[in-house]
Each structure stands twice: as C-alpha cells, then as structure tokens.
C-alpha cells in the first residue's frame, strides 16, 4: 500500500513539475518535451487506477503520435525561437495568472470535498478491480464501447474522416502543377499528407 502512495507521489511530482516546467520553458521544443513527460506520468496515474488500456493508448496516441506531430510542425516551421518575456497585451499576464490561481483554488476546494465524497466510493474501486480481472480491462472496455457507446464511437469515426479531409484541403498547395510524379515535389507533398494524417 505504501508502494502505491510512493508511485503516486512520483507521478504527482512528475506530472505537476513537468507542467509547471512547461509553463516556464521559453522554448517550444522544451515545452513539448515537458508535455511528453507529463503525459507519461499521467499514463502511470492511469495504470495506478487500473486503466491499463487507456494508459497504453495515452502513450501511443498522445506521446507517440500527437506530440511527435507537434515537434514535426515546430521543426518544419522553425518557430522554436524564444518568446519575449514582456507581454505586449497590458494586464494579460497578471490577470491570467490571478484568474488561473483562483480557478486552481476553487478546483482544489472542490477536490478536497471530493475526498469526503469518495470515502464511500472505495467499494466501487474494488468493483473495478474485479472487472479488470474477470473479463479483463480491454474486454470490459470493448463490451461497453461497442454496445452502449456504439453511436458515439461511430460518430468519432465520422469526425476523424472530416478532420482528415479538412487537413488535406488546408495543407494542399494550390496552383502547383502536378509533375511527372518522380520529382522531389511530390515527395514533399506526400510528406505533408503523411505527417498530417
């Protein structure tokens, strides 16, 4: 049991520390790297709470695909220059920090009350453990996803198709005459497609 607290502590420090570091990182690539660390820490948090499949997907999709995509675009555009420390919008930074702090305080307060709330939820946590053992995490998820959540699931597939088409349209370079298909042009073209999708 202490071990779980220990892992949770590591996870907590990793996740929060990395997010704060991300806040103070002046370089976009560094920020991206801290975000990856945060996500890996969160995956650990998911594992701790018995969400194995979600943890794996979190790594594969977020850390493995989305963040790589971020890095790709940063490198492609060369926008990894350092930002000026002075915010050109007057009052933006103090207000943002103040309001953000207020929000954090409010959420914390609610979370603390949530602890009391969760005192009765311990029994259900064991229910999830049983669920993870009997049909197994993946099978339990699949059973729910493909029965009760079938319609939203299909809707997400539509969303993805729309996103893919939208990206194709956005990233397409208009007015480029198609070449014989052997030059470097088409190479960079498919490069975009590959990266975008």
């Amino acid at each position, binding site marked *: 049991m202490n071990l779980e607290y220990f892992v949770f502590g590591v996870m907590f420090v990793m996740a929060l520390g990395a997010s*704060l570091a991300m*806040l103070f990182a002046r370089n976009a690539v560094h920020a991206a790297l801290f975000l990856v660390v945060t996500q890996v820490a969160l995956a650990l948090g998911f594992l701790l709470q018995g969400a194995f499949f979600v943890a794996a997907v979190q790594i594969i999709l977020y850390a493995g695909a989305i963040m790589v995509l971020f890095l790709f675009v940063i490198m492609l555009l060369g*926008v990894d220059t350092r930002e000026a420390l002075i915010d*050109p919008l007057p009052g933006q930074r103090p207000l943002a920090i103040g309001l953000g702090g207020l*929000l954090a305080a409010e*959420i914390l307060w609610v979370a603390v009350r949530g602890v009391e709330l969760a005192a009765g939820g311990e029994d259900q946590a064991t229910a999830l453990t049983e669920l993870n053992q009997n049909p197994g995490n993946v099978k339990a998820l699949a059973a*729910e996803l493909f029965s009760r959540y079938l319609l939203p699931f299909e809707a997400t597939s539509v969303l993805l198709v729309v996103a893919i088409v939208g990206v194709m349209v956005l990233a397409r370079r208009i007015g480029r005459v198609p070449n014989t298909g052997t030059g470097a042009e088409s190479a960079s073209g498919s490069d975009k497609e590959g990266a975008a999708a």
Partner: protein
Amino acid sequence: MSVPPGYYLALAGLMFSVGVVGALTRRNAIVIFMFIELMLNAINLIFVTFSRMWGHVDGQILVFFVLVVAAAEVVVGLAIILVISRRRGTANVDDVSLLKW
C-alpha cells in the same frame, strides 16, 4: 488503502489551471495548443479517476472520445497554423488580430 480519488482530482485541477494560465500567457500558437492538450490530459485523468471511484469503465470510454477529439483538433489546428505561418511567416497569435472591428 489505496490513494483516494481526491488526490488525483487535485492533481488534475492543478494541471488544468497550469494549462489555462499557459494558454493565456504564451504567444506561440503551437505552444498554446500544447497547453490546451495539457488541459485535455487533466480532464482525462479526472475521467479515469471517476471511473475508479464508481467502479465501472464508462469514464475510461470517455477518455477515448476525448482522445479522438484531441487528435482531430490537433491535426486541423496544426494545419491551420501551418497555412497561417506560410502566408504570414509567423506563428504568433498576437500578429493575427483580424478578429475585430
């Protein structure tokens, strides 16, 4: 006795707040995007925590939908940033202030 859900919720809340502050103070569009991802991640943590609290997998399924939406959003958003950057040579959101009178 395992870690109470409130701890996770507190962590998620703090991360979310950090994401909010970051998204509001940074000027690089891509970085702002990353902070939005951070907020979404915090939400995912909340979902998973609730999933454990209530003892069923619905929360974890919602994480999938968040993931899908995040993926679609990132892809489209990055493409837009790409186009803007190609046209205007910048990814600074303050330089793109056309949304006004």
